[in-house]
């Protein structure tokens, strides 16, 4: 090969490489423009607040935005704020009731409507319907149904001889009532997740179990339950997080009980809201927010570890 030809060849290769890197640069440039609005928005309205929670926690902030550095005073205050730990206790009790109950009911419903029967589409939709209205409407509606002595539910209970029950007025009952209403509201959504996972279990497994003479319960125990494990894990985490920091833990409490009676339904997020917006203790509220953000970071880490870096698609199937 002559020197001239070789030079021409390398020049062509260089030109091609140059064109490729120019294209790659153009592609990257276009990509940054495409993601810019969302990335800036998320940084501003999610990332910044998460960091700010920790930063603000070291200040006393008044209602007009005046800051005064107070070191770790806010965190110290947290340790001996009985009301805070009371509301943490309420949140724990709420999680302890809501998560297992909604898990069991939604899985049960999913198994119930798994096989088609006439009207199965309507039945599934009916279970999901409460989720469509707002938590405010749900709260108002249940408050009406539970009005002491005159509401539909107390009247029903009296008519079957169970006496007068004050569902929202009795401090021993109010949280349980809140849990039941939350289950009614959210169970359809969890049912749909389970239903999708059930659809993905191959029919052959059940055929094989059937040939081996497995009972219905055994089929559930040895086929359904193990196959559902990733989904169950996802539902449990998701519903725990939403019971602690979801809108349900605020809106329903605000509308139904305002945290009462005797603070028996004052969840952590409701307490933080009150500290900030009723009493103007923004710095203190931020310190408590930092604690909540810490909880979320831990849970997210757990979820990522278990799903190999957030591959929910493979994890939940």
């Amino acid at each position, binding site marked *: 090969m002559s020197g001239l030809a070789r030079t021409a060849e390398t020049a062509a290769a260089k030109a091609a490489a140059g064109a490729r890197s120019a294209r790659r640069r153009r592609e990257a440039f276009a990509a940054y423009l495409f993601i810019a609005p969302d990335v800036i928005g998320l940084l501003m309205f999610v990332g910044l607040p998460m960091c700010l929670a920790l930063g603000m926690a070291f200040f006393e902030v008044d209602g007009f935005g005046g800051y005064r550095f107070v070191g770790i005073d806010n965190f110290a205050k947290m340790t001996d704020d009985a009301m805070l730990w009371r509301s943490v206790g309420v949140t724990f009790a709420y999680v302890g009731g809501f998560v297992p109950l909604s898990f069991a009911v939604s899985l049960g419903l999913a198994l119930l409507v798994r096989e088609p029967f006439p*009207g199965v589409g309507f039945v599934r939709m009916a279970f999901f319907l409460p989720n469509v209205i707002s938590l405010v409407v749900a709260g108002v509606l249940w408050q009406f149904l539970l009005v002491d002595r005159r509401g539909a539910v107390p009247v029903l209970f009296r008519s079957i001889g169970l006496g007068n029950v004050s569902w929202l007025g009795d401090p021993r009952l109010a949280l349980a009532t809140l849990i039941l209403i939350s289950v009614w509201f959210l169970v359809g959504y969890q049912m749909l997740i389970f239903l999708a996972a059930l659809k993905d279990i191959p029919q052959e497994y059940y055929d094989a179990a059937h040939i081996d003479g497995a009972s219905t319960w055994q089929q559930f125990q040895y086929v359904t339950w193990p196959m559902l494990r990733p989904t169950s894990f996802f539902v449990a985490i998701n519903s725990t997080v939403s019971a602690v920091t979801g809108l349900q833990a605020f809106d329903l409490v605000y509308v139904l009980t305002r945290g009462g009676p005797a603070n028996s339904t004052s969840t952590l997020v409701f307490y933080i809201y009150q500290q900030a917006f009723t009493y103007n203790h923004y710095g203190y509220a931020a310190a408590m927010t930092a604690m909540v953000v810490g909880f979320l970071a831990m849970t997210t880490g757990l979820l990522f570890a278990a799903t190999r870096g957030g591959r*929910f698609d493979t994890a939940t199937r």
Partner: protein
Amino acid sequence: MIRRRARRAGARALVAYALATLTVLPLLWLFVTVLKPADEMFRASLPSRVTFGNLSYVLTEMPLPRYLLNSALVSLVVTAFALLFHSMAAYALARLRFPGRNMIFSAILSTLLVSLPAILVPLFVVARELNMLDSYAGLIVPSIFNAFGIFLLRQYYLDFPRELEEAAELDGCGYLRLYWSIILPLSRPMLASLGVLFFLANWNAFLWPLTITRDPDLRVIQLGIAGLQGQYSSSWNYVLAASLIAAIPTMIVFFLGQKWLIESMKTTGLK
């Protein structure tokens, strides 16, 4: 054997019908109660006469139309911008190569579990610094951004065939044209289902409007209902009528969009 199985399926269907009825009963109760005269509110019966008085009272004597309009405006604008921004970001994250792509995606994904009540106080401070208190901008802008929509659309775009880009390149089509006239039209089902979700979430939003607005002219419908509940606690007929009016658009949107909605939930197993 077969007969036993058929009987069991029949029993299961009956249980399902019963539970489904029980689940929607409170909503039916709301519907019937609103049509009753005020003095029959707590009677467990059908209305002695059907009246639209409660509905027309809250619509004419109370500023409910204003609240409904505010809610419609905020939810529609948020939904439109969210669909645009999320599909743009998802397109880049799924189909374009650039340095830092995986890192950026992981960072976005790590905010998936962060919900409004968790960051409410510092978010309020951010909005205040941006002069967004008591404004439509304050109601709208912070509500646009969430990782969930980006995540879902990216999953969807990953499944598109590579030939899309090759064909587009042959036609001398730029990234913007490719996104706008090929990717977007192809993602209509997913955009429809996300659109339903975003609309419902924003129409039903309560905590953020409660935190960021004081001005009665900016009140959204959920705030309006909560306000009525405080003010007219003994006038259940008006509070319930307003609640029903707030719930009706959500049910209509759900019935129209449920096909896509359930389909998209199935494909992701997420929501």
